[in-house]
């Protein structure tokens, strides 16, 4: 170890891998529904894409977690975003491609993507039925 920079480099690299062990009460939480319905619809790929993207961008305040069935199986894969102090945003029919946008627009730039949300999906359903 010849310099503080060297130490800092190891720190940053490893922190990315293990920050999820920090307390769950702070920071942004992204939760993926991983019940059978979700997995069948491709939730695992979505989960992996999220983990990948968060890591690539060094977003150490973000944790990606999984949960069971969220209850709207036909809209799977479902991803929920919890930002401190804000209402939960639920994204439906997610794909690895959509993940990149959610991370850059919502997580980084703090602007939720309306067209991916459950609200907009239900609206669409209604229009189709009419």
């Amino acid at each position, binding site marked *: 170890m010849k310099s503080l920079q060297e130490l800092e480099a190891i*720190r940053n690299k490893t922190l990315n891998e293990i920050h999820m*062990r920090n307390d769950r009460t702070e920071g942004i939480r992204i939760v993926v529904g991983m019940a059978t319905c979700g997995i069948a619809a491709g939730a695992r790929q979505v989960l992996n894409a999220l983990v990948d993207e968060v890591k690539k961008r060094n977003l150490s305040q973000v944790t990606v977690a999984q949960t069971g069935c969220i209850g709207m199986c036909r809209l799977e894969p479902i991803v929920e975003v919890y930002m401190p102090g804000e209402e939960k945003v639920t994204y439906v029919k997610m794909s690895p491609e959509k993940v990149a946008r959610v991370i850059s627009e919502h997580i980084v730039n703090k602007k939720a993507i309306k067209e991916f949300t459950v609200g907009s999906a239900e609206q669409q359903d209604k229009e189709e039925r009419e």
Partner: protein
Amino acid sequence: MNLVRSHVLVCGGTGCTSSGCEKLIKEFDVQLAKAGIDKEVKVVKTGCFGLCALGPIVIVYPEGAFYSMVKEENIEEIVNEHLLKGRIVTHLLYDESVHEGEEIKPLNEIDFYKKQMRIALRNCGVIDPENIDEYIAFDGYKALGKVLTEMTPEEVIAVVKESSLRGRGGAGFPTALKWEFAAKQPKGQKFVCCNADEGDPGAFMDRSILEGDPHCVIEAMTIAAYAIGSNQGYIYIRAEYPIAVNRLQKAINQAKEYGLLGDNIFGTDFSFDLEIRLGAGAFVCGEETALMTSIEGYRGEPRPRPPFPAVKGLWGVPTILNNVETYANIPQIILNGAEWFKGIGTEKSKGTKVFALGGKIHNTGLVEVPMGTTLREIVEEIGGGIPDGKKFKAAQTGGPSGGCIPTSLIDTPIDYDSLTKIGAMMGSGGLIVMDEDSCMVDIAKFFLEFTVDESCGKCAPCRIGTKRMLEILEKITSGNGTVEDIENLKDLANTIKSSALCGLGQTAPNPILSTLKYFEDEYMAHVVEKRCPAGACKDLLSYVIIADKCKGCTICAKNCPVNAISGEVKKPFVIDQDTCIKCGVCEGKCPFKAIVRQ
């Protein structure tokens, strides 16, 4: 790029190792591979989480799900349900960690952790102790970097002094003063030592720190070496701690590989090396002068002080010796500043203290609390109270050198001075809880048996005196004591206290003096009435059948292993006291509660 999305932390402390954590890790590997998610989930063996009574413990992140008493056959379910499908296996969780609505609580809201504050244990159960990178990720070696590149040795000592850190090994001596004495000695060979002997029966604070976070001790010793001008250190640890020794050696090797030990650390002209010295596990070798004598290769016996080790220590040169937990605080003090540390604790005892909670208590394990936390908070809130609806009687702190705290003083804040004032002591952190079934004379006898065994024999007051005290205690507990014996015991205790060579002998009478102080009536009951009020001293105990309650059902007589009970069916039975061996079987079997201990 690997896509690890979940970490499974399995406690690998000594407690959980003996309850089978190795098997769990193997089973996780098997099941994760079977589910095809072994690349996404990482299994990490950590140090102690503290809640040893519920081991083996497994925590799954990022959810922070706290599984307790996990068995090999539970792993498949955890993998398939939780890790594969995201459904936390609620029935395997630690009860306390689940809200009523089945939501799980964050760890720091669980009663056991709520009142705790982890400084010395901050990384225990969080990082993989065998991976230096994980230590570095949580700010490891940053304090050392700061010290070597930005601070002078005097400034380091000034920060430690300002923080008011006191030794955690028992005596509570101000750490900075020791460092300052050693630093002021003329330049030349000096040594930095770490006391990891931990001889108190029931104590395992230091072991857990070394098992869970060995690098923090290495980092702190290196900082201390810079402060006093030393280039060589020794960690003295008992060979009875194989897991700690092994992890410590791995940690030293990794630190050397990274150049965090060795020559020109961080590109400066400061060099420091560290070696482990194994002790054979004698209590006296925890005493500082005996410890150094043992490192030198001689029989571990103490010598008179002065000269103090800071002036003349290991191989006759200036040496500082600190306890493991004392060192574990140092990097945090450097990083967060003296003001931060001073903000925690009481006026004269700053920071936190780790306790090994044991005896008659629900949550046996390891806890770290701010100084000034009351005994009641530790026992009732963190410890979860006394099992089986029994009543708290006393707590013993400081092990064989310490004393008892009775119920009337349960609201005493735990800090160095409050404990000394009531005749107990902080000690190194053993905290044994006793309930109404514990006999205080018997407790004193237990500790005296320990000191008699462990006395090194060099000085007469300790070698002969402790033996005589033990003999008197044996006489009292066997029902042959007299009031005069109690007076003699007091006399002897005070004489030994003031005349023994080292701390072992000087403090050996404490368990007797403090139980006499708060429970003299119990001693009197033994000698005057030949009765043990707690019903623990077998020789003073008799089982009798209350004739009014006995229905003559014969169950007791059938179960008595020595045929001491006789009588006529449907008439009251009697126990022949000469034959009875006081095993207590009859008391448990009687359906009418007609048999009592007296």
